[in-house]
């Protein structure tokens, strides 16, 4: 306590934040915290060495769509780093802070790395969960964040849909029944991916958590590797994680150079290495080869099979869309 009070007083009366040459605000989604915590210092060092400018990066995290909404409403982000392109497109359409064509400004449709949906089960896999079809079994509780508010949840919805549609004899009607079965087994719909993890690991609810591959590694770091197992399904969805410079903000603040360098450096071997260490699948071939052991080969399908995010968002997740119909049919039972 004796140490605390002077420190508090000091902070109240004296603490003006140390002014750096450039300050960037990176508005991102929930589970990206850990990656950018590692990446920011690496980039700052690189920038300082190259341009002799000091750069400070501020972070804001939350559910991806909520974060996009904040940028639309005026949160002055220099860059946005999201988990699906619809959130960036929303900023283009509704807020006009980002110019159209952002996905062409960087390689790989502006997605420096990718992830995929995996199944996380309790130690020893007591329910014997091996693939998507085990999620519809009676008595299996599935933890998934809400597809209405979370990109993570939308990827899960589409991954399960794609699995069922691609089975021999599969079609849209069967896929819809299958997904209804999965969501019928969801006892809690959290707003974001991180909250879903907390529900599964901390509150100990559910038999299987469906989330991004990189989130599984975060769980291992925070809760230890002994408590759970990662199950790779037979097929999953390729989640490209796009980034964009917020044109209107950087032009106003005069931070375009630093903001573009910040995102461009994500594709550098150093940036890709940090990504791989955080279990994000890198684009760089050399880095991918080096970390091949931690990324098992999984059959993947992309969002393009659903007509791209714009079409998929409208068909499945907008108000009155298929997800709403599925949720309503579950509520009725």
């Amino acid at each position, binding site marked *: 306590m004796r*140490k*605390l009070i002077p*420190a*508090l007083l000091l*902070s*109240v009366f004296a*603490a003006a*934040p140390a002014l750096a040459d450039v300050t960037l*605000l990176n508005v991102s989604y*929930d589970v990206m*915290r850990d990656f950018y915590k590692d990446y920011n210092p690496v980039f700052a060092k690189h920038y300082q060495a190259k341009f002799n400018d000091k750069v400070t990066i*501020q*972070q*804001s*995290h*939350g559910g991806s769509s909520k974060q996009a909404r*904040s940028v*639309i*409403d*005026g*949160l*002055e982000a220099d860059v946005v780093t999201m988990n699906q392109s619809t959130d960036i497109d929303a900023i283009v359409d*509704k*807020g006009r*802070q980002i110019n159209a064509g952002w996905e062409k400004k960087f390689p790989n449709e502006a997605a420096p790395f990718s992830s995929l949906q995996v199944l996380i089960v309790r130690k020893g896999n007591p329910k014997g969960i091996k693939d998507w079809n085990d999620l519809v079994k009676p008595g299996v509780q599935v933890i998934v964040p809400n597809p209405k508010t979370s990109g993570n949840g939308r990827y899960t919805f589409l991954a399960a849909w794609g699995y069922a549609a691609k089975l021999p004899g599969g079609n849209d009607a069967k896929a819809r029944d299958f997904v209804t079965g999965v969501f019928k087994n969801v006892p809690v719909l959290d707003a974001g991916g*991180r*909250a879903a993890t*907390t529900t599964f690991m*901390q509150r100990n609810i559910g038999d299987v958590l469906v989330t991004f591959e990189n989130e599984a590694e*975060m769980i291992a770091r*925070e*809760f230890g590797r002994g408590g759970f197992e990662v199950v790779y399904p037979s097929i999953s969805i390729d989640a490209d994680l796009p980034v964009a410079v917020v044109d209107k903000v950087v032009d106003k603040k005069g931070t375009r150079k630093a903001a573009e360098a910040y995102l461009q450096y994500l594709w550098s071997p150093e940036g890709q290495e940090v990504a791989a260490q955080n279990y994000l699948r890198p684009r760089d071939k050399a880095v991918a080869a080096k970390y091949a052991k931690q990324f098992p080969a999984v059959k993947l399908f992309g969002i393009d099979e659903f007509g791209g995010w714009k079409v998929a968002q409208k068909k499945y997740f907008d108000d009155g869309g298929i997800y709403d119909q599925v949720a309503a049919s579950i509520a009725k039972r």
Partner: protein
Amino acid sequence: MAGGVNNAPRSIVTTETRPVRIVLTGIALAFIGLFLVVPLVSVFIEAFRQGWHLYLAALVEPDALSAIKLTLITAAIAVPLNLVFGLSAAWAIAKFEFRGKSMLITLIDLPFAVSPVVAGLIYVLLFGAQGWWGPWLADHDIKIIFAVPGIVLATVFVTFPFVARELIPLMEAQGSDEEQAAMVLGATGWQMFWRVTLPNIKWGLLYGVILANARAMGEFGAVSVVSGHVRGETNTIPLHVEILYNEYNFVAAFACASLLALLALVTLALKSWVEWRTERLAAEDRRHATEE
């Protein structure tokens, strides 16, 4: 909420039998234990789970310090604003008759009736980039939402009724006789306010301020909507607690939560003290009255 200050003593006449009384008291105590005491204690246990050092480290970490600082600044602006507004509103309502008075009373209660999230969204709609005044604000480079002014505005909104709600019944009960006497004896408006009105209401006023302050520091919903969650910039203590919790940093989350819990305990202690003071003063008044 209102009327907490003047509890007239009453004689206790109960007709319930002993077992009924024991069962009722038991239920009440079990409820309080389960829903209030256990969670409160658990906050402190979790906070100190890994020792003093980690507890202190969590509180002096730069992001935590900035959250504490922002919370104090917010309360320091919001509470005096509410004090001034509450006093003038209660004064106008209790001492004067005018058209629209009942309307004003209802409006003062609005922040209690509206969900804090809606309160936050109102400000986003007004001051957000896509809001009514957003383009004008952007042209003049004025930042309200996702900056300190927005957080203060949202806090002022949710704490709006506390002081006024405390004072209105008190001032109405006292009537305006003493003020009229002061006027007749030639007091100016200020003299009347400082020498007659304020001494009469000071304990009720203090009570309202304590409650407003507790809410200002603890508000989550409205502030969460307008904050933008920039670490070290626009996070108040409650928002910082949520972030830490989501980062699996449970010790730090509970350490910061324990600050808020401590604030609640101090608030309660102050509140009881104010109640005790007012009751004693009221008792003295009654004694004087009977002696005369």
